[in-house]
Structures are given as structure tokens and as C-alpha cells.
């Protein structure tokens, strides 16, 4: 079995008009044994979150770093890692990510000599600092034997194969433009996580599609969005990952322009047998 992982992030059409930068970030990391760790994050972009681009970068870096550390800690005992992630995915793992994201935010805030909000009794108000970097996070670790996914806030993660399109994680639907955020106090309490074993019965080719909410929100409805996920998969099957990779940025720009105008990020990990086409 082989895999190819690629993605793109584009500034939203309406953000471009208002002179804002793209607040989304994404990261992928491949470990020696072929394990893929990847994440997307959507900085909030509202006025109260002026550094949310930095917040989303920290989010994807934190997820990849934390998951790699867990992976290395249990590298000689895969079953123990699976058991741990299954039991503690939405608690201790999420807490670690929450803690590390906030630690890095404070460090960068101080390093850049940005204003420190102080309370009436002279104490530093860290919550107001975190708010300025607010971001969501969707991340997945795909090892040869399991996959572990975690999400805080909006965004989508789908698994697609010849049998159809399925959610890997399904976050609560919050109406409007609000979302759960890493910047909230104890943001880990809003995390959702899942662990699944992988085995020989898995059908290839298959793909994981991970995106920020600008992608789904640009579609007329949920069915049209699922159709798009399936279509990306079929296009890779038919034309190869390279062809999709080369066109991806342009497609996402078009999606934002004809859709909701928000930043759009899409990260795809495509798995296939040696005999099948991908490149």
C-alpha cells in the first residue's frame, strides 16, 4: 500500500476584498514507518482575534508535535498506544494539545512584545491573550494499524472510498459564524476524538479529506459537499494526485469566490495499492 498526501490553503474571496490575510494553516508530517500526521486549523479572523493566523499555525504545529511525541513514546508497544488513544483521546491527549497551544501562544505573545492585558488587581489576564490567537483544529494520525482523529471547533474530516463518503469525525453543528475554539478556557472539554483500527479488509484506493469550514460552507448544502468530496477522490483515481495537486489552489480559489468567501484549506491523503495509479 502506498500513499500520497498534499494540500493547499487559499485566502477567502471576501477576505481578499477587505485586505485581510489568510487565517487558515495546514501541516503534514510523515514518520519513518509511513505514519502520516496531518492537521488543518482555521484562525477566527474576527476583530477580537487579530493574531489568529499565528494561532492557527501554532495549532497545526502543536498537533503534529504532540502526536509525534506520543507515537515515539509508545513506538515499541503499538497496542498500548492504541489503548491509550482510545481511552484518553478526548481527555488527556486533548488536554496536552490545549496546554501546549496556550503555552506557545503566551511565549510568542511575550516574544513579540505585544500588550499584556492586566486586571484591576495587577494580574496578567491570559484568557484575553489566548482570545487574540483564537483558532480551530482538526487533526489525524494515520498509522499502518490505526487512525486517530481529534477536533476542536468546526471543520470537516471525511473518509472516501469506492463505497462512498463517510464522516471520520462529526463536530456539533453551530449555526451562524461562531465556533468552538482552542482559545476558550479548558478548550479540551469541547474536543471530539475517535480511534479506529485498520486491517486487511480496508478497501483501496481510499482518501482522507480534511478541510476548514470555508470548504463546506461554500456548498449549497451537505449533499453537494459530499458530492464534491467523492468527486475529488474520483478525479485523483482518474487523473492522478499530481494533476489534482497542480490544480488544487485554483479550484479552492474558485470555490471560495463562488461560495461563502471564507478562507479555504483542503488536505488530502490518498491511499492506493502498488498496482493502482496515484501520481
Amino acid at each position: 500500500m502506498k500513499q500520497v498526501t498534499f494540500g493547499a490553503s487559499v485566502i477567502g474571496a471576501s477576505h481578499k476584498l477587505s485586505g485581510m490575510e489568510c487565517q487558515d494553516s495546514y501541516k503534514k508530517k510523515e514518520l519513518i514507518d509511513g505514519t502520516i500526521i496531518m492537521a488543518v486549523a482555521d484562525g477566527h479572523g474576527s476583530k477580537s482575534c487579530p493574531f489568529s493566523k499565528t494561532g492557527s499555525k501554532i495549532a497545526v504545529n502543536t498537533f503534529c508535535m504532540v502526536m509525534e511525541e506520543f507515537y515515539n513514546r509508545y513506538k515499541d508497544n503499538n497496542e498500548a498506544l492504541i489503548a491509550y488513544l482510545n481511552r484518553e483521546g478526548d481527555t488527556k491527549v486533548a488536554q496536552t494539545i490545549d496546554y501546549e497551544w496556550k503555552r506557545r501562544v503566551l511565549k510568542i505573545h511575550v516574544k513579540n512584545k505585544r500588550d499584556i492585558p492586566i486586571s484591576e488587581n495587577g494580574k496578567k489576564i491570559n484568557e484575553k491573550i489566548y482570545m487574540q490567537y483564537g483558532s480551530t483544529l482538526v487533526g489525524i494520525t494515520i498509522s499502518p494499524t490505526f487512525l486517530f482523529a481529534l477536533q476542536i471547533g468546526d471543520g470537516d474530516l471525511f473518509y472516501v472510498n469506492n463505497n462512498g463518503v463517510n464522516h471520520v469525525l462529526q463536530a456539533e453543528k453551530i449555526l451562524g459564524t461562531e465556533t468552538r475554539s482552542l482559545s476558550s478556557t479548558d478548550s479540551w472539554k469541547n474536543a471530539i476524538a475517535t480511534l479506529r483500527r485498520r486491517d486487511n479488509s480496508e478497501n483501496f484506493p481510499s482518501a482522507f479529506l480534511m478541510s476548514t469550514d470555508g470548504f463546506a460552507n461554500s456548498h449549497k448544502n451537505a449533499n453537494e459537499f459530499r458530492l464534491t468530496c467523492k468527486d475529488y477522490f474520483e478525479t485523483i483515481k482518474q487523473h492522478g494526485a499530481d494533476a489534482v495537486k497542480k490544480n488544487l489552489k485554483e479550484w479552492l480559489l474558485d470555490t471560495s469566490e463562488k461560495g461563502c468567501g471564507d478562507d479555504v484549506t483542503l488536505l488530502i491523503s490518498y491511499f492506493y495499492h502498488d498496482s493502482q495509479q496515484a501520481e
Partner: protein
Amino acid sequence: MTKTLKRPGGELSSRPLHFIWIVDCSGSMFGEKIGTVNHAIQSTIPEMVDSAQNNPNAQLLVRTLKFSSGASWVTVNPVDIENFTWDDLDAGGVTDLGKAFDMLAAQLTIPPMTDRALPPVLVLLSDGQPTDDYKKSLNKLLKLPWGKKSVRIAISIGQDADDNMLQEFTGNPELVLQANNPQALVKMIKWASTAASQVSAPSSKPLGNKNDNGSSGKLNGEKAATVLDINNIPNASSIGDKDIW
């Protein structure tokens, strides 16, 4: 060479943004008040069209709901702002605000609303006291998912308006705009009409934790409707020569 392929995917669409004028047409609005409302709302249309064209990623849909003895939709279905026309309203009858809230609630459920819409903007104009039991209907409206998330503005016309009721509707005293003369009424209507462009930005905002008022729809303890920039609300006391209503 790069292979040029057609973009994969289903149908794309901008996000709908519903903007609803809710107008008190009871007998006390007769004459200059309803005349000013008709003229002022009519005059906001070109600016709302311009504003919508500057944000092609939100589809601004406008409707009018009137209430007096009973309530009814003047605009039966949501209309794209470019095709929206204002039909002058007449005044007469009592103030059945509860009926208006019932009709509003029926339209803010999913469906006919979709879950991918932007928060709806509701602008209520009234000069008097409701004559029906509006509280039950208002509670029902504000319990709906889109009722909670709606951006609600009230324009209090004249000194007999029930500001407590209007504040119950907006959930925020700063969004009860005072209009005690025709000039103030025109300015407040104009300001309210800009709410659509303020709500239409796709940027997201953090919601509180599930355990701390997450279900209230409030933003980390802030008032929900502060998604609007309330700093530029016209100062009612400095508009017009005197309070004549």
C-alpha cells in the same frame, strides 16, 4: 505540462442572509410616523443593493412583516435585495405584536431556513404597547436556534413606545434605538439597514465552552448582538430640533 481539469464537485453557493423589517402599523402610527417609515425604508434600498454587491459571498434576502390587528407578510417569500421593492404601508388597528412573533418563528425554523445561513437580522419598529400576550410568542421565537442567533434591533418611535418590551426583544438595551422625531427615525432606519453588511462577513468568532453558557449562544459572556459595531449608532439626542412624538 500541467493538466487542466474541471474543478471537481457539487453546486457552490453564497450563504443566505435574511433581513426582515417588522413594522408596527397600528393606529398610533397613522400619519407622519408611517409616512416617515415608508420614505426612510424605501430610501435605504439603493445603499443595501450597493453593499450587497460589495459582498457577493452573502445572498441578502429581504422581507417585510407588518402587524396591527393581526400580522401578515407584505413580502410573501424572501426576495433578493436587487428585486426588493417597498410597498407603502398604512396604519390602523391595534398592536398584535405576539402574532408577528409567531409568524416570524414559523419562518426561522429549519426548514425553511437552512443551517448554513448567516445570522438573520430582525429590525422591529414600534411606537406603542403590545395589545396581545406577546411574551409567550417572544419566548418561543428566542428559543429557536436561529431565533437565538438572530441579530435583533428595535427602533422605539416616540415616547409612548414600550422600551422594556423592545429590550426583551433585542436582549441588549444599546440596540433599542430612540427616534422621537422624523429626522431621528430616518437616521435610525438607515443605521439598522447597515446591519446586513456587518453580519455578512464570513469570519468566525469563538463560542464559550459547552459548560459556560454554550447553549445560550452568547460569545464568551459578551452580548450576542455585539457582532454589530454599536459605536457608530447615531446619537438620538443630537438629531432634530426637539422631540415631537
